[in-house]
């Protein structure tokens, strides 16, 4: 009886450990995945409800990852384009995930996204994300395929819907 309890406890501990190990690891290469594209690094960030969200939560979907900030004017010009694309393609498994690089986080992000009517996922960025994705200009967007690979980076504002749409349509 005692042995059973101890072993159950050990199994529980191991399960817990293996669960916590999952976070931060990139999605491993799988059979049938094109190796030419890099795997998008995984991360855990808070959403605007202050709930932890990971990139892998969106696995199986096409994701447009957008690095932006409330003080970045060119970023603001892209947001209406992203809202439109999300509305038009969400039914086909397309997600837009905007990572805000504002130090003030929710305080500035919440009123801002409400004003612009952002309806897609917004996450509160942490400094290490800039290095992880090598963000050198703002905005920077990354188109991620259903296998979790970056197929197209967009450095700087593109200014038009077609640039994103053309790449997105290849993945639908």
């Amino acid at each position, binding site marked *: 009886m005692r042995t059973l309890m101890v072993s159950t406890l050990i199994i529980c501990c191991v399960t817990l450990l293996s669960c916590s190990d999952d976070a931060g690891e990139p999605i491993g290469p799988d059979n049938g995945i094109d190796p030419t594209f890099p795997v998008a690094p995984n991360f855990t960030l808070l959403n605007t409800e202050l709930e932890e969200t990971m990139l892998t939560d969106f696995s199986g979907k096409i994701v447009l990852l957008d690095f932006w900030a409330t003080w970045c004017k*060119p970023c603001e010009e892209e947001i209406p384009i992203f809202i439109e694309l999300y509305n038009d393609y969400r039914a086909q498994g397309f997600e837009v995930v905007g990572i805000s690089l504002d130090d003030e986080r929710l305080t500035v992000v919440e009123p801002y996204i409400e004003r612009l009517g952002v309806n897609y996922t917004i996450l509160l960025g942490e400094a290490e994300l800039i290095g992880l994705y090598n963000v050198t200009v703002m905005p920077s967007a990354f188109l991620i395929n259903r296998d979790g690979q970056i197929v197209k980076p967009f450095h700087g504002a593109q200014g038009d819907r077609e640039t994103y749409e053309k790449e997105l349509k290849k993945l639908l």
Partner: protein
Amino acid sequence: MTNQRIRSTFVALLSTSLLLVVIGCGEEETPGPIDPVAPVDIVEKPPTDSTAGIRGLLVDQATKQTLRDTRVKLVDSQGEVRETSTTRAGVFEFENLAAGEKVTVLVELDGYEKHESVVTPIAGEETTKITVNLVPIIKDDALPPGDGLRVGTKAPDFNLVDGNGKRHSLANYAGKQRVVLLFDRGAW
């Protein structure tokens, strides 16, 4: 012996109930609606729209980093104290609060000024979200990086090269003319 006792108990019970029935019949009809069930204390919770919750993010005001594993206290309007700890992401949460009633959020952490803020959680499905900025205690006159300057602080001097290779220091201008310092965030 035992059987006898059972029998006598049974008889006693039967006669008591008969007596009760007799009394019941003899009584006049009670006016008004008759409650068939004896009144029982209702244990069910009040409707959920009267309860609310608070979810907050704890941040170091100077470095803008979130603060994990930090104790956060909440004192409700009845003076009841609750305690929790921030998650690895710096998030704390209090549930089942009375909606519309003020609560005080308290954070005491070494190296920071004591934080106390009053929050009124809103009723409904949405959790009330707050950001708690902890102010680091500044020793001497040293300013922690990122905290910026305060009004009245002497502007720190600098010596920088302009586009033509000429050096400028703030001390060259001080006392002679007014200076506006403009920090450009970058090419974008």
